[in-house]
């Protein structure tokens, strides 16, 4: 019988031109940062102090340099430069790169020439790639009838290097991309791109910065940014469980009225923020009796932390933006997310009943409550098990607030200190009140 074969193997242009469309330039850069952070995790998962990632972005080149340990030649040969992660690949150990697509996709996305240098204590090598040459690179093999045929050559060449030609002193990775793709060149030329990238890194990688990792973007050291929840009069909903080797923690409660963009659900996979301020049905809004997001619910914030040694089990998508909502583990977390939402939104629906005073009340709560940072929410244990304790709606406080104004002024520091001491006030605030009452008394303005 004649063999009827249709070739199913991929083409190189599919990887160069198609899969790069699914990802934004910012996310491609974040993918590279994730690789560095994976390296940092291998050194010491709990402490990133003395580790750095230095990023340089300009219209001529893109450079990323870290001292996060680098990777071995064996890793490069078996995984890092392979397309897709082989099934026999070792456990990923709490990392975030796992599909075997991130680094290549990012580099193809950014430019036409790239070099990747790695130093790890055993090997020191460099891979240079001219994407256009690589795309057309062929090799000859013999088919089953021993005829010479030409096929795509997917291999990359590496060279071992010495310290003289090295960009690295410590163990780490150095990546440089030249000959930027046109759209990347255009974007890198826009100043606001740097501000957006800075903001993305500070939000999405806040846990790594918290652990001491220094991330430098064009010479500027970036700070961490993260959400907070109120705790004091209210107690956040909290539940933690382990499923299939994944530790899952769901926390939800109230936060500042402020910016509606920050309300919603936040999902972290191995400390990487993958879904941010979500207000869609993916996190339960508008499903099963839970309302669509509305500005009345602006105080709602929920966080889900999923951590696993085996990254492939996490419900990540390849772009690390969003979540695989059909995964079994996410469905389990979803049950508790819905329970949390119903509880917190129940309270916020009641706040709405305050009518004109609702907003003042929301602001007042923000002033009164203790704030817990996302880092604390990740590790602290909470009393409230699967319940959200609402703050008591205090109508009295609201009306007092409505009948008062705030008086403030600047004064000479030395004189103010002297006055504070002389009046026996414990704080400038108290001294201010003392002055006000003193004036009223002296001018006989208040009926005793």
């Amino acid at each position, binding site marked *: 019988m004649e063999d009827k074969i249709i070739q199913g193997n991929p083409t190189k242009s599919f990887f160069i031109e198609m899969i790069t469309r699914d990802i934004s330039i910012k996310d491609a850069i974040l993918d590279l940062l994730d690789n560095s952070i994976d390296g940092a995790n291998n050194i010491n998962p709990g402490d990133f102090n003395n580790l750095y990632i230095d990023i340089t972005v300009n219209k001529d080149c893109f450079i990323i340099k870290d001292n996060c340990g680098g990777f071995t030649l064996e890793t490069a040969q078996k995984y890092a430069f392979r397309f897709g992660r082989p099934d026999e690949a070792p456990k990923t150990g709490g990392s975030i790169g796992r599909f075997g697509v991130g680094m290549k996709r990012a580099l193809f996305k950014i430019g036409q020439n790239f070099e990747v240098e790695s130093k790890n204590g055993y090997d020191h090598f460099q891979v240079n790639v001219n994407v256009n040459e690589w795309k057309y690179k062929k090799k000859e093999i013999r088919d089953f009838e021993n005829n010479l045929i030409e096929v795509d050559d997917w291999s990359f060449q590496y060279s071992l290097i010495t310290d003289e030609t090295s960009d690295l002193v410590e163990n780490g990775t150095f990546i440089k991309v030249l000959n930027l793709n046109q759209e990347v060149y255009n974007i890198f030329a826009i100043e606001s791109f740097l501000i957006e990238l800075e903001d993305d890194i500070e939000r999405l990688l806040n846990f790594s910065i918290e652990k001491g990792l220094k991330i430098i973007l064009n010479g500027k050291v970036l700070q961490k940014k993260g959400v907070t929840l109120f705790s004091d009069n209210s107690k956040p909903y909290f539940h933690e469980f382990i499923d299939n080797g994944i530790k899952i923690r769901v926390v939800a409660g109230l936060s500042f009225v402020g910016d509606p963009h920050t309300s919603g659900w936040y999902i972290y996979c191995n400390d990487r923020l993958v879904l941010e301020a979500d207000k869609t049905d993916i996190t339960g809004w508008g499903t*099963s*009796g839970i*309302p*669509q997001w509305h500005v009345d619910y602006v105080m709602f914030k929920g966080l889900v932390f999923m951590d696993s040694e085996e990254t492939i089990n996490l419900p990540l998508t390849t772009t690390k933006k969003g979540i695989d909502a059909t995964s079994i583990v996410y469905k389990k977390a979803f049950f508790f997310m819905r329970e949390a939402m119903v509880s917190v939104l129940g309270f916020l629906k009641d706040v709405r009943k305050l009518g004109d005073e609702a907003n003042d009340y929301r602001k007042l709560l923000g002033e009164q409550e203790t704030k817990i940072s996302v880092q604390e929410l990740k590790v602290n244990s909470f009393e409230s098990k699967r319940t959200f304790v*609402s703050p008591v709606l205090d109508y009295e406080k609201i009306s007092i607030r409505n009948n008062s104004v705030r008086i403030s002024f600047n004064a000479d520091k030395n004189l103010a200190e002297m006055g504070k001491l002389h009046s026996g006030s414990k704080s400038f605030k108290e001294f201010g009140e003392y002055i006000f009452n003193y004036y009223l008394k002296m001018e006989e303005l208040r009926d005793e």
Partner: protein
Amino acid sequence: MMNSPKKFNYETRPHKFTERKMLLASLQKICNYFGGIYQYIGLGGISFTDFKLFHKELHINELCSIEGGKFSEKRLHFNSPYSFIKIRKTISTIALNEIDLTKKTLIWLDYDDTLNLSMFDDIRILFSKLPVGSIYIMTCNRELKEKETREEYSKEKFKDEFGTLTPYEIENIDFSSENNFRTIQRMLNSHINNIVRERNNIEEIKIEFSQLYNILYQENQGARMFTYGGIIISKEFRIEEIGLEVFDFIVDNVEPYIIKIPNLTRKEFELIDSHLFLKEEELLAKGIVSSDHIDQYKKVYKYIPHFYDIRM
């Protein structure tokens, strides 16, 4: 939900009274079967009728009344019959978050309102936690009308309000008074079953919700009410074991049990009593009561109240 006692004293509503006695009769069997200690959660208002009844008849000592209406805290405490009733003056969704729902619970959320989303919120909170043997009962006004216009919902308006809780196949006629209770029953049933299914994906012990109550009644000239409820059982449990078949008001499907007390005098009631079951043909031949009267009476006679005027 909270202002009904102002309109009518709960304790003298004969249909409500009858329903309460029916529930009690079945609850005695259920609580007895499952044994152990139950807590009771209800919307006690200022009359606490069900609290008094369940404390005395079911021996439930842990009682919690949720009251979100405008009654003052002082008035609520003054009217509470027992000092050990915990009163939570807040809306049910908030209050349920403050109560330990991992205990075996009897809960009767006797809302006066028409169907609204917070009732589904309460269901989610309850069915995410309540253990096997717990009993959930809710009562609401069964009208499906828009709040502002007081007109029956249209399909579109209903979907706007209830979103994905809306049954997939629904027509405008499903909001009419002939059908609204079926629509509500379908929605409650499907919401509960969805949550139970989600929960079964998570927990070791697989549970099921078994519907027991699907009751309609209307107080004279008053609101048309709908009561729905059932019990949480483990999946392998056979509900027949409880022996509820002796009660004809136990309904596990969509067709409701209708409580209607026939409009008869005391003498006529006594006449029916003395002919019931064995001498019904003889009774009809007298031409005093109709066969409809007899049928209605048979459904309720064990539970109806008899009011007498007394001088104090």
